[in-house]
């Protein structure tokens, strides 16, 4: 089979996605039943029906969203072939790493495992039961042991970083080990494929690497870490920022120096004006928003390559995340400004934010 087959099917799947008008109407809802009724007329109908047998209210929507993503991503993975399958796997594996990091962070700060479970993104490469088992563990070392027991490949980097984490209690050690392993492994896979499609996926991965490095650098500047140790956690393989550029960012003496350096880089043009005393969290939000915008629109309409698969995965991620935010907002009776601030605003997928704010 070829990309023509895969991309034609994806076009159909993309047509079934929710549009700005639908999101605008969901944002005006005050009851979960209203949301369930309108979602039952969309592509989510099948999962909502199945979910209604066992759950009700917010749990029903949450469960339906998880099943929906798993159905579509499994379908996408099944439809892919040869090199496209390898590239799709690289793109999907990002969510597995995100989930593993979320679980580790949850144990690190002593979160309620149930709350951590709600923050996980539905994935297909590792089953839901795998994450449920991880959440039942007693702590980080127990999580690492479980990964070894089930033969999960992320056991290796985590077990190497664990002794140092146990003495220093620096979560960055574990997160960096996971990221390095994923990005390094992905780069090797993409190098083995070696064609234009692999280069395109590499761009996506590389941009994410840049973003992680920039946020990491600002966090260290915020914590005033000056030891040479900070250079250890630089992720290799950035798209626009090489090792030298990241080292230069890390060596910034203060925030204004850091923001000036970022402003002079490729990302400076893309992010617009940055406040001199921007916090790492704000920078992360800005950069992630940029990443979402880029990757959701990473589809020049070509039928013969990986662009459509990549943008579909990112768009579905945004769609489900936003639905979760809206449903959770209605359920918790959260003020609409809070819901609006937590949504991912992608042009063409979501209504104009200002218009929604005005209506609210």
């Amino acid at each position, binding site marked *: 089979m070829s990309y023509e087959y895969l991309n034609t099917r994806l076009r159909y799947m993309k047509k079934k996605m929710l549009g700005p008008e639908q999101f605008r109407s969901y944002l005006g809802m005050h009851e979960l039943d209203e949301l369930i009724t309108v979602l039952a007329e969309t592509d989510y109908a099948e999962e909502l029906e199945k979910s209604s047998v066992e759950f009700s209210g917010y749990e029903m929507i949450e469960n339906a969203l998880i099943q929906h993503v798993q159905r579509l991503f499994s379908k996408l993975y099944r439809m892919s072939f040869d090199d496209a399958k390898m590239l799709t796997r690289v793109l999907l594996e990002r969510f597995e790493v995100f989930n593993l990091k979320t679980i580790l962070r949850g144990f690190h700060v002593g979160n309620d495992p149930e709350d951590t479970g709600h923050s996980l993104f539905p994935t297909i490469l590792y089953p839901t039961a795998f994450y449920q088992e991880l959440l039942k563990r007693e702590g980080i070392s127990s999580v690492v042991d479980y990964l070894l027991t089930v033969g999960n490949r992320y056991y290796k980097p985590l077990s190497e970083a664990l002794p140092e984490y146990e003495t220093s209690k620096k979560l960055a050690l574990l997160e960096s080990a996971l990221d390095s392993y994923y990005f390094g492994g992905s780069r090797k896979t993409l190098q083995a494929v070696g064609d234009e499609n692999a280069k395109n996926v590499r761009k996506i991965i590389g941009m994410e690497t840049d973003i992680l490095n920039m946020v990491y650098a600002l966090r260290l500047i915020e914590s005033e870490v000056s030891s040479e140790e900070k250079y250890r956690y630089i992720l290799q393989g950035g798209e626009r920022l090489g090792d030298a550029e990241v080292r230069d960012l890390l060596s910034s003496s203060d925030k204004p120096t850091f923001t000036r350096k970022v402003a002079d880089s490729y990302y400076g043009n893309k992010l617009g004006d940055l406040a001199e005393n921007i916090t790492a969290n704000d920078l992360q939000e800005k950069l992630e928003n940029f990443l979402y915008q880029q990757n959701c629109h990473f589809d020049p309409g070509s*039928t013969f390559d990986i662009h459509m698969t990549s943008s579909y995965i990112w768009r579905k991620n945004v769609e489900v995340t936003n639905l979760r935010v809206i449903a959770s907002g209605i359920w918790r009776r959260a003020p609409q400004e809070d819901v609006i601030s937590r949504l991912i605003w992608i042009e063409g997928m979501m209504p104009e934010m200002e218009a929604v704010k005005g209506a609210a």
Partner: protein
Amino acid sequence: MSNRTIKRIMLAIIVFNVTLMSLAVWGLAQGATESAAGGGLTDAGMKTIGAGLAFLGGAVGTGMAQSRIIAAVLGAVAEDPGQLGFGIFLIAFPETMLILGFVMSFILKG
């Protein structure tokens, strides 16, 4: 639309193309035999080779177009079986190139 029906349609298209191709090869072989009997490459022989090439160009072009169209149509039918009719039309559309090549080869042969 079952996979079996789709396979049958694909088989029919392949058989049609192979038949046309065989006719062209047969024509080319005949022309070559005639020119060999005459002791050199005659005008008739040149025309036959030209006719064969005209047909071959159409056939290769059709094959290249159809390989992609068939993959896309299979994808569309897998998502929406109602698209089969339009899909078959799209698959058959590049056959016009083959028919043009076929007509051209007849014109060349006189």
